[in-house]
């Protein structure tokens, strides 16, 4: 089998085998080295190299994301059924329904992102970097399942091209590409990303409960969904996220009481709530965090920093909260901040992106702390943005070289004094 594959690779590697004079090595070699270890040997000392390459490094993040994917898929299906009043859907049914929503997003993300990566690698004449493996895995998880596909295409394109490639590709980007794409969507299409209605309308929706609809119906709905998104608007069921609830400013309604009436803390920890596909379950995120810390891929300092920053700011606001007439959100117990919305997901998977975060141990703590604190500030004080994690991380991404700079300068001074 490998011999056959080798023949294909060799044929494709011949100058201009596919498109006349245009060399087309990037894509075929990327595929080749994806499947097999490259044949490169060390040029000089050191004569041996660590077994780890960037592929393995990044693959670990994808592994860490798997529970989020599995649970997210189930949860999307479950909430979709709940929105039409079906409460007895089985695990299998929920997962299948979820797959119908999540899988297209994932496939589309990888297709579009891979296409951009391929184009840039081709033009620049270097190999395709595996960085997109993780960007592509993160992107669908931070978006609502109701997102129209064309918006996803725009978001991914923006994230990859403006967020990463214009800076020079993997390792050179200032901002987290996945979050850059999401930020673009957030500001360009606020209606779909406000968090007010984030539960998808189920595709499988027969007249008698859970009988699957005809495939033709599904196809029609898919096309409609591609154009309009898939927001469900069913009477009596609110698809609002926990954060949207907490941030509501309706006179006479205590937002925190309303939140607790709808979602309990344990729901938020286990993740049975509407939200972005991957962010809802703190339990799954905790698995990811554990895995990332254990393998050393994600920095525990960043994670600890974010949670400490969030908790500190939450406590501070609690202190004001008692007398606050203006903002109910101040009174939200500080620990609930940490399990709501994408706080945990962002802390574990987004803030720890080594490229856009600082590299120094100390700066990672500072960086994390500021992300956590900023996130809570944006959540509670700015009514326009119910969730602050994305903006907090992007903001601190910009400042991470500055934090590093000061930490390194102080290191240089200490070193000179020795």
């Amino acid at each position: 089998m490998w011999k056959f594959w080798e023949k294909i690779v060799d044929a494709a590697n011949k100058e201009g085998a596919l498109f006349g004079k245009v060399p087309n090595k990037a894509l075929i070699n990327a595929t080749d080295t994806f499947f097999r270890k490259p044949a490169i040997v060390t040029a000089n000392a050191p004569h041996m190299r660590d077994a780890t390459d960037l592929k393995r490094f990044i693959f670990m993040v994808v592994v860490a994301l798997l529970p989020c994917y599995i649970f997210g898929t189930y949860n999307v299906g479950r909430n979709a059924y709940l929105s039409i009043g079906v409460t007895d859907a089985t695990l299998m049914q929920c997962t299948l329904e979820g797959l119908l929503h999540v899988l297209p997003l994932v496939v589309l993300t990888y297709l579009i992102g891979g296409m951009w990566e391929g184009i840039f690698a081709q033009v620049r004449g270097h190999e395709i970097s595996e960085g997109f493996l993780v960007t592509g895995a993160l992107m669908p998880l931070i978006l609502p399942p109701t997102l129209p596909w064309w918006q996803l295409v725009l978001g991914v394109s923006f994230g990859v091209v403006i967020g990463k490639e214009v800076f020079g590709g993997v390792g050179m980007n200032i901002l987290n590409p996945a979050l850059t794409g999401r930020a673009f969507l957030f500001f360009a299409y606020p209606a779909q990303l406000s968090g007010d209605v984030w539960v998808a309308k189920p595709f499988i929706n027969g007249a008698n409960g859970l009988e699957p609809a005809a495939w033709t119906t599904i196809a029609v709905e898919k096309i409609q969904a591609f154009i309009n998104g898939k927001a469900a608007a069913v009477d009596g069921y609110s698809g609002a996220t926990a954060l949207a609830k907490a941030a509501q400013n309706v006179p006479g309604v205590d937002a925190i009481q309303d939140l607790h009436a709808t979602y309990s803390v344990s729901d938020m920890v286990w993740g049975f709530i509407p939200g972005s596909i991957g962010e809802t379950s703190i339990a799954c995120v905790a698995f990811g965090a554990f895995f990332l810390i254990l393998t050393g891929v994600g920095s525990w300092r960043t994670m600890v920093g974010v949670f400490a920053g969030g908790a500190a700011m939450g406590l501070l606001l609690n202190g004001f909260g008692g007398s606050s007439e203006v903002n109910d959100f101040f009174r939200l117990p500080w620990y609930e901040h940490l399990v709501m919305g994408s706080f945990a997901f962002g802390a574990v998977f987004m803030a720890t992106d080594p490229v856009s975060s600082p590299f120094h141990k100390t700066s990672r703590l500072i960086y994390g702390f500021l992300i956590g604190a900023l996130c809570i500030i944006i959540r509670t004080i700015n009514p326009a943005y119910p969730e602050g994690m994305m903006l907090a991380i992007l903001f601190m991404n910009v400042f991470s070289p500055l934090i590093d700079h000061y930490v390194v300068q102080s290191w240089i001074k200490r070193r000179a004094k020795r």
Partner: protein
Amino acid sequence: MEKVRIKGGQRFRIAHGVGENDLGVLSSETVGFHPSGTKDFKAKVVVKVGDDVAAGDLLFFNKKNENHRYLSSCSGRVKAIEYGPRRVLEAVVIERSGEAKTSFGSFSPEQVQSLGAEATIAHLVKTGLWSRFLSHPFKRIVPVPGEPAPKDIHGHDLPVPSLIRFHVSFVESEPHLVPTGATLEGNIENALLGLEVLKRTGFDVVAGVSSNTDSKLKSVSGVAYKEVDETLFPAGSAEVQSYFTQPLGAGECVACVDLETLIDIGHVVRTGELRDERTYAVAGEGASKRGHARGPVGLPVATLQSASGVPSGEATSSTDTRLVAGGLLRGKKIDAKHYMGLTETTLNILPEDRERTPFVFFRPGGNRLTTFKLWTSALMKGKEQVATTSNNGEHRGCVQCGQCIKVCPVELMPNLVFKAALAKDIEKMEQLGIRDCTDCGLCTFVCPSKIELGEIVESGKELIVKEG
């Protein structure tokens, strides 16, 4: 005795090491002498093909500095003078015959005690041993105190680093190198005398030892000792020990004295003659017999190769086998036609690993040599892994994973140093402590983006030397 605690470094467990095996005494009709790629050594050969030389005769010296002398350690006839590309001297080949010897005068240990600093240094220069002292930083031959400064192309004096101390390491921590125990066997008296001679130069002498070092070597008065953990690479490197002794100021350097050189010093002072012996070793996956052996200076690579069980007829480096003179991290590639250097006495025979293992990054990886905790082999700390020459990946951009910072033995931030070197920013490189870099190669080894950090940092150091 002060124990040195190194935060970085790496404990390697690599299969196919030198081991305890004694391969006996090797001999060769022809031997080859060369300056072992010492930087800035532009050899001017003073003998011709067909000349008879005695042990102790000058073979070549450095055109840039006549104090850098290379003497023949055996008698015989010059058979060939081999040059490589750009007329770099590759070897002065000598066919061994006769017992003719030049004597430099022998000293008893008591006489050594009464030697003055100047006389000692002059003796070391005369015997060609001074030119084996390499400076840290920059790995240049240590300037002889009082010698005139070298000139740049405009005729201005280049700055001369001032020597502040000698460093000797009795510890070898690099995987696949001659064990120090084998080198020191029967040579302890010479090594002790060598230490005395170094002390007589008037400079401080610092020696790195481990718990396994012979107690005689640990108790020389007037020598400062640093105890290191020999299982941790690169704790055995004199440069690393220097970093943990006292930081170097601007324009200062230390002299790193190789163990073989130290024994040479003791031998030449005691007997008046140059020592014509080295402890060699063969290791690596490609060698069927591994172990250490004694042999003359300048042993042909092929002799060592055949001692390892590789038939000498096939003893040429091919594209399938890599011959490395030195350890796995700092050794140099060497050709089978060449001769072993004065200080690189280990030959590593490594099969070139171009195997295209399928789906390698999905595998659990119980047999992967790694510093990361991404493979199951990270759980098997005691298991020996096979080192291969595979690059294990393609070059990518730096993603700031921070692994190089973790392993750097001298607490640098290689990710910043290499970027400063790429930008040719001398001031930045100096601030980030490039002078402390010991060239251990660990940062290059661990880099998951397969960036040649060592090479880039080295180019930065060369730039600093060139710009003064």
